[in-house]
């Protein structure tokens, strides 16, 4: 029930993001109904169960194309960042392994290039905090550079607390740094 509520909130928030007035920036990523339907379909899995492997591959490619647009743009505006972080949320919620690997490889550079925009997006859409901070930890797991997560925490703690507040900031940093004992 809690999970369903979380997903309903995510869909409502997503609708608000995509209907947000555009800034008029001509280089803004095109985000139309097709892209919106790909993201919502991935989150809700409307048609996933009856598809064969090739059809699922075709769906994956549509989804990967949307992700690639946001991942490959060097600087994202606040609304684009919200959509990027929404994609991070969906990949965690639905356990989309390849997307998680792609995000793990890139998310730290996305954060470090625009920490203020990244954190402002999280501040405005706080339901994205757990998934995003878990994805940041995913970077250190993916690269094997586990010792660097504490450097990250030290370097950005103040800024994270400034944008997210102390409680949510602590929650985020604990997700980044805490790794269960290896079996």
């Amino acid at each position, binding site marked *: 029930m809690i999970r369903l509520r979380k997903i309903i909130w995510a869909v409502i928030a997503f609708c608000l993001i995509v209907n947000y007035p555009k800034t008029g920036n001509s280089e803004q990523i095109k985000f139309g109904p097709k892209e919106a339907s790909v993201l919502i379909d991935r989150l809700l899995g409307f048609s*996933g169960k009856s598809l*064969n*492997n*090739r059809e*699922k*591959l075709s769906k*994956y*490619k549509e989804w*990967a*194309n949307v*992700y*690639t647009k946001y*991942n490959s743009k060097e600087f994202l505006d606040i609304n684009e960042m919200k959509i990027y972080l929404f994609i991070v949320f969906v990949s965690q919620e*639905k*356990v*989309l*392994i*390849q*997307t*998680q*690997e*792609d995000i*793990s490889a890139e998310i730290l550079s996305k954060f470090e290039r625009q920490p203020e925009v990244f954190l402002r997006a999280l501040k405005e859409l706080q339901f994205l905090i757990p998934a995003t901070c878990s994805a940041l930890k*995913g970077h250190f*797991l*993916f*690269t*094997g550079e586990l010792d660097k997560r504490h450097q990250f925490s030290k370097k950005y703690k103040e800024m994270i607390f400034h944008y997210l507040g102390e409680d949510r900031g602590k929650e985020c940093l604990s997700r980044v740094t805490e*790794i*269960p004992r*290896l*079996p």
Partner: protein
Amino acid sequence: MDLYGYCLNDPLNFEDPWGLIRIITFIEGSGGGTYAAAVTVFNTETNTVEFVGHGSTFPNFPGIQNTVAQGIYDGTRTRMDSKDKPGIFMDTTPTAPGSPNRTADEIFVHCGETASWRGSSACLTIAPSECNKFFALFGKEESVQVVIERVEID
């Protein structure tokens, strides 16, 4: 191992319903290890083993990241658009006990990152030095079966 399961274990009397030609097997000890799996590609038309090499069925950190369960899975040869690298797409799979999630989606067979690092959160990887040879076997969008078997090693 049940390589002919998809044609009721009677490949002489039952036609292959999906036109599958190649079966990829990963056989690995239960403890895993980087590229510790024996990977083979079997061609059912010519009855030949076309590839023998090394791979991994475990993620970088088993127990923290998901491990695909043993089993037989459908796959399709493709390119991973986000990385522009070759891959075999395996859709939703159950995970092995001890994994954080019960199922995982978007599992690929892809090349390992380096000779000593799989660079995988759950995907199956092929040793980088053998990867070109492995992927050269498959036609564009060829349907395959991927078999994962783990054995206890004393």
